[in-house]
């Protein structure tokens, strides 16, 4: 699967879509593939503040438990409640309906080291 061009990526295989002062987080197709069948997603509370690089939730596959880390700092304004009933959306549509949370980007603009799509593709090839 090709890497969407409107996203930025972390070394932990998370993606972020920045639109104005809002950011949407998810895990990449590579990440869902490596995790295998996802059977549970633990979502944070709306209103919680997350630092860049902080674990904000948990994705569990049949065999593994993995933290997911915030690519940018912000306050959680929405969580993808559909994942409570259909955690496998992360597998089937990692960049779309499998998004995990939305945050209002914090004013300090703090962010993890982000890669553009070309850089991430190269990172995956290394």
């Amino acid at each position, binding site marked *: 699967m090709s890497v969407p061009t409107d996203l930025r990526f972390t070394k932990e295989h998370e993606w972020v879509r920045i639109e104005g002062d809002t950011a949407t987080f998810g895990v990449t197709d590579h990440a869902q593939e490596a995790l295998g069948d996802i*059977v549970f997603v*633990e979502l944070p509370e709306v209103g919680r503040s997350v630092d860049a690089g902080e674990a904000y939730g948990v994705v569990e596959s049949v*065999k593994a438990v993995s933290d997911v880390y915030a690519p940018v700092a912000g306050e959680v304004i929405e969580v993808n409640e559909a994942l409570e009933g259909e955690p496998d959306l992360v597998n089937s549509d990692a960049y779309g309906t499998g998004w995990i949370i939305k945050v209002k980007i914090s004013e300090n603009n703090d962010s993890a080291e982000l890669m553009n799509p070309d850089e991430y593709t190269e990172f995956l090839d290394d």
Partner: protein
Amino acid sequence: MTGLLKTPLFDEHVKLGGKIVPFAGYELPVQYKNGALKEYTAVREGEAGIFDITHMGQVRVQGKDALDFLQYVTTNDVSKLVDGQVQYSALLNEQGTFIDDITTYKMDDENYYLCINAANRHKDVAHLRKEAENFDVQIHDDSDDTTLLALQGAKAQSLLQDLVGFDLEDIGYYKFARGQIGSAGGIVSRTGYTGEDGFEIYIPNSIAVEVWHALVEKGAVPIGLAARDMLRTEMGYALYGHEISDGVTPVEAKLMWITKLNKGDFIGKAAVEARKAEGAQKKLIALKLVGRGIPREHYPVFVDGELNGEITSGMHSPLAGGGVALAYVKPEHMTEGHLTVEIRGKQIEAERTKTPFVRSNVRK
């Protein structure tokens, strides 16, 4: 990965997109390309799955004293077996704790066959050889020459029938037959670890690929370790290293049904009797989460807000619709007290339940 063994089917697993992991000293597929959930579903919902469980060990016990020997080294009553019957049993040490859990196959009065866990193989064989010194028996470790396949699920019998030279319908639950399988000979038992009807197939390594291909071509779905563990846990079956170990006796593990204290002396008997009299230190229970989450091995279990024990096996059960687990708790809390499981620092509500967690379809 150095020092790891490969089964004769290793290349087949790789060709099928198997994700290879180290397990019990072998390189085995944790899942194939369609993922563990689809594999699980194939076995539970009307298909048949094929499992390479060649890592398990096989030991032949042969000789005039075979019955007396097995009565002494295993917990179950071997005198109850007829030719062609299989029995779930265990090897204990003098402390009454588990060396291994096994199945015993009776060929005839002087020939038995044991199927043992891969991780315990060398320990088991050394133990059996040492004890055999006092009996007229010989111990043969056939593990390296034997391929073991499990074929499990509603279609198992129809898929296997064409490959064997005997009528599978004649093999009852925990019975076996010997005869032609593919181009050689072997053993087929109506046994398994999934709670579905099905067979375990013992064949020489020389025909492993041939039999595997024939079954896969007929539609058997290859199943990896992850789905195997899901199917096993949903039945509440004990697994060595999890529910049972050299730290627990059959009294704790609720395996007194395979421990026959009235059959005469056997290794560990006195210790088990003593443990039974003084009471278990902990007891295995089955639980289901009421709250959301997945209970996993080693997660702490609380009763009335206090740490009480821990989970030994746990999973998200698609059929039970939530988290299910086996756990050890203090004996007085087997049936009483408010149960919670700690998941990432939070207490998640749970309730006691019975095994199997989902309906068993074995043919009894």
